[in-house]
């Protein structure tokens, strides 16, 4: 089946069970929310799915993306995009440079790349921002650029690690809508970790409690 | 400093023991006279890079060597690299090590500025190339009659194994502004009296330094009962007795020296700096033109003058020698020949450059060449010809070696 599948995933720290065992199917376009108190290991779960679990943890279980078992793969081969609480735009690149970094290498021609980047910016209401320094953007704008960067890499699944935690209330709604709409449009199976019930409600999908 | 390591390493690498070297040194290696003619040497020298190992503590000498480098490059296509030593022994030990390791050609040292105990050591151990000086055309211009030190170094016959390039004679620098010309000492004894009357105003370089050892040797040649004894190697049986007057004199002098004789400048230039700074008033030099050279080059006050001791002062000649295993012996010979050329000698004698007296017999030169030497007399700090005193021969090197050991013990003990 298409989508993101977690098959009997369990994570332990010092032989102490932290997460799971957990099995979960996330369908294309669906947003599944993982909730739990701090320290419950919900971000650790995302790290496992993304492929950068710290050595201190032990884990078992498979992760499948569109039927492909990515469990043993390095993160860059998994085609799993991730967004964190901070936008983490590369400070040494322009807005356009950040997006071009994300844009898959298959598009070779420089003018074509530029066009795609500008198109993406325009669709997000950020037309003309390509040559701006990320530091000059507002929080909401930065969050959008971060998502655009992720989407330009054409991931097959999306991980959201408390993605709206640092935005103020008004902005949060706005960005949330933007992110979920894009994920659905693209049919991305999305796994979100949050401790904000409002996020889960807005996502409108299933909620899994851990911890 | 590095050479003993090299020596050991070479021995390790080849399995040739250093002990074997010590034994071998008794039986001097065969001298191999240079048989090629000079044009052929010039031909083979072209394109060579000569590593000239020479004491690097004096900028005026360093500049002169740099000038020589430019000239031989331009004239003969020979590159010259000045390996600046803080002690000539470093170069000697490098060659010793190479011999121990069996590196009989392709050695790292091509040319050494050398005389005294270092020359004797190399000659004795068969570490020198040649005889080669007869093959150098400019050697014909060298004064071997009136300047015997050009062919006999510290009582040791040079035997053509080293080329002379500058003449040295002990003199003393003083600042005429602070010391009246008619009060300067005229003998070793008077020097002691002067120091007692002017405490802290006299010092000498540490005896580990060549010039510092000469300060002691000058006392030796003047105070010793029979100067002729110094022409033979120092013998254990008579050494203590012979040098006793020197140490009597020195121990009386020492408390009156700068820093009460507890600390000494590391070199001649360091001693001269003290004179320039006004910390001391009298300084020994191996170069009677040093006052003029120092004044012209701005190292010494304009009022610096020189005096000699009336019974004569020690004189010697600086040589360049080529190690037996030099990688670039032809280039080294070309440099040695150029050093004896009228152009190089005139430049060296000009106090604006070096102020080193020539080894040449000026009467052997053309009038034009001779004219280039004239400028030296012009400077007021140059001693007049009649002021020069008799040149006393250097004692056998063993005297210097032992005096320095004694001094070291006395100072530290």
């Amino acid at each position, binding site marked *: 089946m298409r989508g993101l599948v977690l098959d009997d995933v369990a994570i332990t720290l010092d032989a102490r069970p932290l997460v799971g065992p957990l099995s979960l199917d996330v369908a294309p376009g669906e947003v599944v929310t993982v909730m739990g108190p701090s320290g419950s290991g919900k971000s650790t779960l995302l790290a496992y799915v993304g492929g950068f679990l710290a050595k201190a943890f032990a884990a078992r279980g498979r992760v499948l993306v569109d039927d492909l078992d990515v469990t043993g793969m390095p993160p860059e081969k998994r085609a799993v995009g*991730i967004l964190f609480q901070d936008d983490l735009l590369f400070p040494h690149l322009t807005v356009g440079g950040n997006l071009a970094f994300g844009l898959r290498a298959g598009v070779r021609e420089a003018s074509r790349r530029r066009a795609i980047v500008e198109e993406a910016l325009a669709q997000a209401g950020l037309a003309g921002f390509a040559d701006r320094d990320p530091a000059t953007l507002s929080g909401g704008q930065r969050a959008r650029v971060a998502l655009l960067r992720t989407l330009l890499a054409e991931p097959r699944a999306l991980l959201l690690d408390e993605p709206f935690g640092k935005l103020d209330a008004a902005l949060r709604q706005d960005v949330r809508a933007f992110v979920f709409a894009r994920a659905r449009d693209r049919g991305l199976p999305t796994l979100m970790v949050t401790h904000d019930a409002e996020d889960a409600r807005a996502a409108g999908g299933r909620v899994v409690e851990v911890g | 400093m590095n050479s003993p390591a090299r020596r050991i390493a070479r021995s390790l690498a080849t399995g040739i023991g250093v002990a074997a070297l010590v034994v071998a040194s008794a039986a001097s290696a065969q001298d191999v006279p240079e048989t090629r003619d000079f044009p052929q040497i010039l031909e083979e020298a072209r394109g060579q890079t000569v590593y000239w190992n020479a004491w690097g503590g004096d900028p005026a000498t360093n500049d002169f060597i740099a000038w020589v480098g430019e000239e031989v490059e331009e004239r003969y296509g020979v590159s010259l690299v000045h390996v600046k030593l803080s002690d000539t022994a470093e170069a000697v030990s490098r060659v010793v090590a190479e011999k121990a390791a069996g590196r009989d050609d392709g050695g790292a040292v091509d040319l050494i500025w050398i005389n005294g105990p270092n020359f004797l050591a190399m000659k004795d151990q068969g570490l020198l190339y040649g005889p080669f000086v007869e093959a150098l055309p400019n050697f014909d211009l060298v004064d071997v009659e009136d300047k015997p030190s050009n062919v006999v170094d510290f009582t040791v016959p040079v035997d053509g194994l080293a080329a002379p390039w500058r003449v040295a004679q002990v003199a003393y620098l003083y600042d005429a502004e602070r010391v009246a010309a008619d009060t300067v000492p005229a003998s070793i004894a008077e020097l002691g009296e002067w120091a007692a009357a002017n405490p802290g105003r006299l010092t000498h370089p540490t005896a580990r330094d060549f010039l510092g050892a000469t300060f002691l040797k000058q006392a030796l040649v003047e105070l010793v009962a029979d100067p002729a004894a110094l022409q033979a190697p120092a013998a254990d049986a008579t050494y203590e007795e012979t040098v006793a007057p020197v140490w009597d004199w020195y121990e009386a002098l020492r408390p009156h020296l700068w*820093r009460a004789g507890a600390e000494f400048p*590391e070199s001649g230039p360091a001693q001269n700096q003290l004179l320039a700074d006004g910390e001391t008033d009298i300084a020994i030099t191996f170069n009677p033109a040093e006052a003029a050279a120092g004044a012209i080059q701005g190292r010494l006050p304009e009022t610096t003058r020189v005096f000699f001791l009336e019974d004569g002062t020690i004189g010697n000649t600086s040589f360049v020698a080529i190690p037996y295993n030099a990688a670039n012996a032809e280039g080294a010979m070309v440099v040695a020949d150029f050093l004896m050329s009228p152009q190089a000698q005139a430049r060296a004698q000009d106090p604006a450059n070096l102020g080193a007296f020539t080894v040449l017999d000026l009467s052997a030169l053309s009038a034009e060449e001779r004219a280039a030497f004239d400028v030296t007399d012009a400077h007021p700090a140059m001693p007049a010809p009649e002021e020069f005193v008799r040149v006393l021969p250097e004692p056998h090197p063993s005297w210097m070696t032992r005096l320095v050991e004694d001094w070291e013990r006395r100072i530290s003990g």
Partner: protein
Amino acid sequence: MTTRPDVLRAAPALTLALFLVPIGAGLLGTLAPAFGVLPAIGESGFTLDAWRTLAEQPGIDASIRLTLTSGLLSTALALVFACGFAALASSRPGIARLERALAPLLATPHVAVAIGLAFLVASSGLLVRVVSPWLTGWERPPALAIVRDPYGLSYVAGLAIKETAFLVLMVLAAQGQVRAAQALAAARALGYAPLVAWAKVVLPAIYRQIRLPVYAVLAFSLSNVEVALVLAPGTPPPLAVLAMRWFSSWDLSLYPVAAAAATLQLAVVVAGIGAWRVAEAFVKRIHRAWCERGRRTGLAGPVLALGGAGGVVSGVAILAAIGVMALWSIAENWRYPDALPRALSLRTWERALPTMSDLVSTTAAIAAAASLLAVILALACLENEARRDLKPGARALWLLYVPLLVPQIAFLFGAQVALVRLDLDGTLTAVIWAHLLFVLPYVFLSLADPFRALDPRYARIAAGLGASPWRTFFTVKLPMLARPVATAFAVGFSVSVALYLPTLFAGAGRIMTLTTEAVTLSSGADRRVVGVTAFLQAALPLLVYAAALAGPGLIAARRRRVTLREGTP
């Protein structure tokens, strides 16, 4: 899977081998002959002859005494200066602003500072000249033994002044790690005076962090040759200088004696560090009792304030030392008691230029090569650590400090044996390698913190975008770390420029740098030429520092304009 990650995996081992092997081989090569194991001369039996001869050398006991007292005293002084400065800076913003001057002070080579200081304080030096004869009545330089005094006090002062800058930097870095500001605020809220609060709550925390750098300073002070040649007394000199004298003699019988002296030097450093540790334990007990007594003010205040003043004076002294040598380089006729030269000219520079341009290019080439290699190795180790999720251990830190703790003279002689066998002595390769030993620890220490502090999520984002680890390294991490990388390079560069013994030994005298030249000339040659050399020696690392500070900003600005075109990996 490419093979490149395996190259990276080997980085730590390669790095350690690069500097532990020569040090180990060197120590062995020094130890063996000291105990009569000298296969080269057919002696392989254990003997203490060399030690007996060493013990009989005139002045050897005085030399050991001088070495130990000057090393311990100068390190203690530098530590008090550095702590005083940091304590003052944490309560007075005016002092804190002076921290900016640290980098240039740190970059100035020891020899240049020592030469300048020697002229400043000599009895015919600048300080005496400024007040003579109008105030002192000294028409002639007074008969005071200031420079190279028999007790080594000028030597102690010279070392303390130069090392203070390094320790200040270490203290400030440690303060950042131990949340000193909060602790300080808490103590002051309890009614403690600022400096007393610093001594009671910040000092113990930071001392744990700076212990290794303090030992490195101690080891250097106990075993350096270059500062000793300029400022320490010569009859007898510190032990390292004695060992150098015997090593450079062509009299073969002195070789085992020199090796014994170098071994003794190692023992002296071990003993010095041991004595320091004993003192540490002692001070710790007093400190605890003092803290528990609860007095809100105390002697610590004035002591730290005085130390801080010493720190500021040290900085001023370094600048003055370089300034006065720069002035000498253009001086004509500068005689006692003139406080300024009577005339200025550029003729010394004109005369020295051909020699100096060679020296500058050799010095810069060696420093650039060693620093570049060190930066690459340090980055490789750190990147390997990041990718394999390794935690840096304390043991690794000790290993890193090995070249800074083992006295140079104790392993350089032996290491040279290895170089000769490899036919590498006197080559640039050997000199660069020798420099790498000392450059790498500083480069690594300067790069490790910023590298480890980089938010790992940037790399995860990049991986999520499909970038390989190498692409992430080159296009994300490296550009983001441009400034620390450039700074680390500059730190390495300045360390390399200042190195004396490693250049001398590996270069077999054939490879000359500004530092070897400065030391050769410092024994007394024309002070104006020494001035040119010392000034250039100080200016070269400063230039690189300035470039390191300005460069990354310019490059980043340029990058921003062009990145859009660099879509392909």
